[in-house]
């Protein structure tokens, strides 16, 4: 038995393939849009993964450190280390700023980590080149997306840092690549004012008679020294001992240290449910509309393809072809078109995804969902086309 669908496709294979490719590009865009949405959510998740923490200890009544500013004294971690179930605790600071390198500058999130060796909370988990930070000052590990290379000199505020390591997929919730520097430098970058501001503040203080009394030598120096301290960090990352449930460890810290503590699940809720919620919904909305439009276009294409063959179908009917055969032909063609479209779309999406400036995550589950969706839409569209085809009067084959 010959395949009617196959013969028909062969009859006009160019038209069929090009329609499929066009369809595919549309599906590719839809898949990419889904990837952009997933990438956004993944950026938020990867931020949590990279901090390799079980608990985030932040300032009381804040949603810090990612969604809201939070600042803690930098010796808070000592008190937290003494709490039951705490295995490791490390200070961390986050600051998004432009990092200068030569003539250009890159938007990056500066992460201040305790240079305590590999595996400490907050340190980049894996590298793709170079080494982890070993000196306690003026070294940096940068994400590949910053475009920095090993040995590059970065300028952050008034200090210069040498890139000693490169990592990958270490981004902030906004997708900015991270640059890891030693904590003490980061504290300085975050809390130290610029030189002009310091000079002006010194002058102002010196002019204030309350701080610069003739009878009290040393008072002015003491006041000035107290004005330029930076004993703050944004959060303390905590890893709990094996066998402890993070929430069990968090509760005593909340209660007795009077600090806000978030577990991984709560942090994810804050990041995805609050921080990127609007942006993600925006993309999500666009994705939904794109999916509907794509579905409509796929349906119309198949419908019009079928209508374009209405005379041939009338001839088939005239020579006594069964309805089932005609329906199967249209359905097979539609599914074939869908298949080509999906394959082209998937390939196109995979190839152009890495070019996007922000991360595009093409999940296999999304691909499977997309495949099923395309097939269902093709089948539904072919139902419309089949109805139209079956209604054709065989007389049309002869008539004008």
């Amino acid at each position, binding site marked *: 038995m010959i395949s009617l669908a196959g013969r028909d*496709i*062969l*009859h006009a*294979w*160019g038209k069929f*393939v090009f329609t499929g490719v066009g369809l595919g590009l549309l599906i590719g865009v839809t898949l990419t849009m889904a990837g952009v949405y997933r990438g956004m959510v993944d950026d938020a998740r990867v931020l949590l*993964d990279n901090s*390799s923490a079980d608990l985030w200890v932040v300032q009381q009544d804040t949603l810090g450190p990612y969604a809201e500013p939070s600042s803690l004294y930098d*010796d808070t971690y000592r008190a937290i280390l003494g709490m039951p179930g705490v*295995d490791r605790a490390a200070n961390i600071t986050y600051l998004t700023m432009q990092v200068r390198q030569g003539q250009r500058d890159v938007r990056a999130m500066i992460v201040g980590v*305790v*240079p*305590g*060796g*590999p*595996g*400490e909370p907050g340190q980049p*988990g*894996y*590298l*793709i*080149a*170079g*080494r*982890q930070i*070993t*000196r*306690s*000052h*003026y070294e940096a590990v940068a994400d*590949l997306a910053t475009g920095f*290379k*090993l040995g590059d000199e970065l300028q952050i505020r008034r200090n210069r840092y040498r890139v*000693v*390591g*490169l990592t*990958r*997929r270490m981004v902030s919730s906004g997708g900015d690549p991270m640059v890891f520097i030693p904590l*003490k430098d980061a504290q300085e970058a975050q809390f130290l004012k610029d030189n002009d501001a310091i000079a002006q503040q010194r002058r102002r203080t010196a002019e204030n008679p309350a701080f610069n009394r*003739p*009878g009290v*030598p040393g008072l002015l120096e003491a006041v000035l020294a107290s004005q330029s301290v930076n*004993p703050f960090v944004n959060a303390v990352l905590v*890893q709990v*001992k*094996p066998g402890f449930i993070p929430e069990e460890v968090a509760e005593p810290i909340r209660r007795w240290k009077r600090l806000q503590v978030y577990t991984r699940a709560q942090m994810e809720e804050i990041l995805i449910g609050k921080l990127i919620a609007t942006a993600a919904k925006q993309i999500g909305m666009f994705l939904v509309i794109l999916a509907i439009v794509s579905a409509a276009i796929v349906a119309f294409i198949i419908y019009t393809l079928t209508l374009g063959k209405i005379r041939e179908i009338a001839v088939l009917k005239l020579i006594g072809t069964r309805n089932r055969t005609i329906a199967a032909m249209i359905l097979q063609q539609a599914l074939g078109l869908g298949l*080509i479209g999906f*394959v*082209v779309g*998937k*390939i196109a999406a*995979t*190839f152009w995804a890495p070019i996007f400036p922000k991360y595009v995550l*093409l*999940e*296999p589950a999304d*691909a499977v969902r997309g495949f099923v969706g395309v097939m269902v839409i093709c089948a539904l569209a072919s139902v419309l086309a089949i109805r139209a085809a079956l209604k054709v009067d065989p007389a049309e084959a002869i008539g004008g």
Partner: protein
Amino acid sequence: MTFLSVNRRVVALLAVIVPLLILMVYVALRSGPLAPIPVTATVVAERAITPSLFGIGTVTSRYTYRIGPTAAGRIKQVAVQVGDRVQQGQLLGEMDPVDLDDRIAAQGAALKRAESIIQAAEAQVREASARKAYAENQANRYEQLLQARAVSEETVAAKRQERQVTEAGLAAARANHDAARQELARVRADREGLIQQRANLRLLAPVGGLVAARNADPGTTVVAGQSVVEVIDPASLWIHVRFDQLRVSGLRAGLTAQIVLRSREGVPLSGRVLRVEPMADAVTEETLAKVTLAALPKRLPSLGELAEVTVALSALPAAPAVPNASIQRVDGRLGVWLLAADRLRFAPVKVGAVDLEGWTQIRDGLKAGDRVIVYSQRALNSRSRVKVVERLEGVSP
């Protein structure tokens, strides 16, 4: 004819479909979770490492002489400017003596008066001595006359009394003389004291050195202890270095150090750890140490200038070592990913010393010849498929 044309069409269609399918399979296998993760691997080798410590310090001087008055007063003159070299004992400045000079002059006059009083007292002593000598002679003569019964008993008694009066007069004159001498000594001491005080208003350099600061100018009133001029000994410059307490083990006096001043990058100076301070900084969690320069640069670094100090510790015996990028924490344990027959296995390790280039000695858990993962494109787990490459994508050679 028909067959051929159909055949041609089949070939053309296949020519499109087949590459598409091949591409699809490639895409499915090379991206997403099915794709192998590119990694780089290294073979663990025995390596002797020289751990070093890295610290940040500021240039300070060992001795800073803050020179100022010992009592509140107004500055009369400051004789030096910042940057001047001064000799020991050189006049740096002077406080306003107010009435001190007048008081010294008054004491001078008082001294002269006291000297005159002494002369008067001496004259009195001489007078009293003369009176006494005459009264003694008279008394002796009348005694002899009494024995010859030439004068009356009463007259002799009068002469005896005269002698006693002149004796007492002499004693009084001598006492007066003594008092006058004491007075002179007192006045002299007073004057000396005032002169000392006057000298104390002169601010002198206690050592030869460099004027580092001039904190007040003539006319300023300063309180006791407030410094007017600060003098440092340039030869005593050292660097006050702070080391993170996390890595400070092995730091001790006598180790050689490499110093890079912020103003002279690329010109490392050599130095030596002079001492590790017994008191660490509890707030910044840093251990403090003093590092001296082996030779002072011709152009002196400014005090307070930032310096990077790298202290080389003694070399450790060879042991299996890996780059620190290969050490990861998985499920709370520190370890490395071992690559054996293209299978990944997580091997927990105990890490030892680390050098500044990131080489980490492994005390337990690895042996030389093991193959470990150094860099990976993604985080690994034991089910990850890996592909060993020379260099990861995006990393320039």
